[in-house]
């Protein structure tokens, strides 16, 4: 195993493209080191991207924010402005693991680990975030929902990695929220997660919405039926019932050590409803 810490994207891409065997990106390392430790993977090359300029920065761009791949959850929270614009995303990211994990874990790592239960992913999807993928051939911007394919599998090609996440400017009167269910109060992987972003008009009628569910399928789901259920409403009880029903209907979970099929289906609806209420309140200020 080789450890490299290149200081340009080009050098990193070069290392990854030429690498034989398994290679892995090191940013926060909170998934990578666990997988190495358990013997799940034995990478031949680890590329630490933290020395590359920009990787640990959050910069304003087109009214939104570009967040470097190595920005930790704690750094994202302390930035303040991102959380003001997209509270759902920042809160979701801050739910990952303990204080200690927050000191290291990144949104991009959470995304590229491709766990269906990744907390930040439904929130990013709801916010309309894109991932900037760099690679040997070109740089491309990809909607976050198109990165993970299946548990542990991404759409990234050899030599490619995600260099940053872009959160677009939130339209006026937009609110976002993410809620997850875990058996304890902390330190668990989401049994169900629900991310939502919605925009209201001056009268409080929802004009746009995006809802994403985590841990209820092989990857985070975008549930258009949930959005439809509340667009045009003022989030009255009927709209919330429709939303919950749509979320439960979209959930196609499995039973495992973390939860059962029935539980996940029911709670997907409960969380979608609760997250929508929070997002709606935030949208209305």
């Amino acid at each position, binding site marked *: 195993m080789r450890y490299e810490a290149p200081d340009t994207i080009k050098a990193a891409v070069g290392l990854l493209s030429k690498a034989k065997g398994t290679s892995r990106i090191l940013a926060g390392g909170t998934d990578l080191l666990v997988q190495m430790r*358990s*013997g799940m993977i034995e990478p031949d090359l680890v590329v630490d991207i933290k020395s590359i300029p920009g990787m640990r920065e959050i910069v304003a761009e087109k009214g939104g924010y570009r967040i470097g791949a190595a920005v930790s959850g704690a750094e994202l929270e302390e930035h303040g402005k991102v959380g003001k614009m997209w509270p759902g995303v920042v809160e979701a990211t801050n739910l990952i693991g303990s204080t200690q994990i927050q000191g290291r874990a990144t949104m991009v790592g959470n995304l590229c680990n491709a766990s269906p239960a990744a907390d930040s992913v439904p929130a990013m999807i709801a916010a309309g975030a894109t991932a900037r993928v760099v690679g040997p051939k070109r740089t491309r911007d990809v909607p976050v929902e198109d990165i993970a394919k299946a548990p542990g599998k991404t759409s990234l090609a050899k030599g490619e990695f995600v260099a940053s996440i872009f959160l677009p400017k939130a339209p006026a009167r937009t609110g976002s929220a993410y809620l997850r*269910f875990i*058996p*304890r*109060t*902390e*330190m*668990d*992987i989401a*049994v169900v997660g629900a991310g939502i972003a919605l925009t209201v008009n001056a009268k409080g009628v929802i004009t746009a919405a995006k809802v994403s569910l985590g841990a209820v399928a092989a990857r985070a789901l975008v549930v258009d039926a949930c959005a439809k259920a509340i667009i045009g409403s003022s989030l009255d009880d009927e709209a919330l019932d429709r939303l919950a029903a749509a979320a439960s209907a979209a959930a196609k979970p499995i039973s*495992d*050590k*973390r*939860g*059962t099929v*029935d*539980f996940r289906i*029911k*709670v997907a609806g*409960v969380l979608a409803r609760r997250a929508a209420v929070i997002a709606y309140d935030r949208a209305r200020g």
Partner: protein
Amino acid sequence: MPLDANTPDLRTEFKSVGTRPNRPDGVDKVTGRARFGADFALPGQLTGLILRSPHAHAKIKSIDTSAAEALPGVKAVITYKDIPEQEGCDKDVLVNIMARGTALYDGHAVAAVAAVDASVARKALKLIKVDYKVLKHVTDVDEAMKPDAPVLHPGRFDPVDFSTLENAAHVSGKEERKTATPAHSNIAGRYVFGHGDPDKGFKQADVIVEHEFKTEATHQGYIEPHACTASVSSDGMAELWVCTQGPFMVRDVCASLLGMDVSRLRVTPSEIGGGFGGKTTVFIEPVALALSRKAGKPVKVVMSRSEVFRATGPTSSASMWVKIGAKKDGTFVAADAVLKYQGGAFPGSPVEMGAMCAFACYDLKNVRIVGYDVVTNRPKQAAYRAPGAPMSAFAVEGVIGEIADKLGMDAIDIRLKNAAKEGTVSSYGPTFGPVGLVETLEAAKAHKNYKVKLGKNQGRGVASGFWFNFAGNTCVSINLNVDGTLALALGTVDIGGSRASMCLMAAEELGISYEDVRAVIADTSSLGYNDISEGSRVTFSSGLATIKAVRDLKVRMCGRAAKIWGIPEDAVKWENGAAHPAGSNAGNFPPLSIKEIAAQASATGGPLAGHYEINAEGAGPSFATHVCDVEVDPDTGAMKVLRYLVVQDAGKAIHPSYVEGQFQGGAVQGIGWVLNEEYFYGKDGTLQNAGFLDYRVPVCSDVPMIDTVIVEVPNPGHPYGVRGVGETSIVPPLACVANAVSSAIGVRARTLPMSPPRVLAALEGVAASKA
């Protein structure tokens, strides 16, 4: 005048005892200096790793270690062949530390390597080729008792006539029970306790409640994984540094497994990072010694967390049936129970103790408990804090909660009405001496927590619990230093601050300051045999021996004073840290302080020391009553513990902070057991949650402050009245929380853990039945 070391004397007034000084090992522990199991290192040591079975049950057809042995840096590879069976050794322990022909559970050790570093050792493990033939497996206790279950130890246990199993209908209601008797079974033992005639008793009952209950296995979850460093020389002399609750046990068991003379093996216990019963046996220790013997170098073996979960002892899972009958006024007239505990791949589940504890809190004229010890393809169970008692208490206290509800009685009143007290013939046989259950119930009832008004979706639960407490072999030495301070050598490992308690008792007995006594945990070559730090025995037994050793020293010091003064020895008494002339000589000489005696020791006959060796008895049981408030989220089944109160009889609290700590720690372990902790097996019989991420012990934000009340009903078996306190605190919480949930949302969860999916499913069941 305590000149006779054996003078019984129940002290009731104290100067040092009952205060809360800082512990003597404290600074080392807050600065990172304290040395735990994995903190030892020897020059030239190798890293030992163990290869474990990936199958729940498999025949080991062959093991090929040649490729691993050929890897540069590998110094030894061992299998069971390197640990030949010795006459008189414990065969189950031998088989458990290294599989012999059959892997009996996921994680069962199969081979081990010692290499120059961890990286090489990991590679070597991968080069060992094991040819397995996978066998059918069984991990559930009820499944394992069926006639057609895969049998773990063919021919070992007596054939069972399944048609005669108690309460077969309740136990599983399956027709196959009535099929012909098979030749072999997984039932390792059947135990019966009780007295009177329950069948007659139930006829007098106005209300009868009976239910089945299940609990899943939980792990002690100590934060420090097992670790040891072994060094065996070519002349057979061996040393072992190890985190264990019982260094003498480790020495004797390892010597017996490896065919060594006990005198050749010296075991030094490290500081221990939690045990809770889980470190009362051996796992890696004999393996490390065997590796070191073969490699001719020191070998350090440290378990990973996943190894701890897969291969060390969790407690039993249980399947139980309990029936209690009561009169309208709440008097229990009969009680009956069937308990089935699986103890993993070997006999020895704590079902007997579970059976004995089940109804121990109550005065019952007609009671019967039947217990079954069952083997399954799981790791060999190890003791876990009050082994066996929390499960049976969960079932019994749950039924009592339901009876109280049916009768409209207060949960504490119904327990007070039936509480065991001095003179009660216990459900397991003996008659109780002075015990404190009634006092704990009264204190709980008077506590402010019992009066807090509850809101929506909130509920309150009550449960009581019992534990025997044990004593056992104990040796203590106390040496008077030249300056009058003292060195106290103990043979019981300090798991939770016991050195502080011993220093307090020594200081109390001598009438000197706590700071003048330094307690150390001795190695196995420095003291006589000491039993394991288990069974809530340390403060009782080592405390007793410390007091007696100090009395022995006092006799000797008074003797020196008598010689110095030229008066008879029995004319000297010890008071406030000094020898005083007494009787007709009173006032004739100024007292000789301990410092003065120490300074003259050399000139008056030599060093002064006291010691005491005993197989202590008389530990005295401890009862507890817990009260818990919870709030349940009816939409998700999530549960929050709002308040938690532990009231327990400590006999006499030597260091009240550490007594409270035992109460609080036990309660939170119990809360973890009821809420989320469980051994989760896949269909293939492999453990799915062998890590702290998915084996969910309570985290700091899961629990509230744990309120405590220390009740003190002195134990006549101890000079200061001490009762053990370590274990009882984990007995009531399972039922206490379950009863609270029932009062909050009307759902009686009888299967643990009451994880949110189970609670939610139960809630929906209730809603459906109402609709």
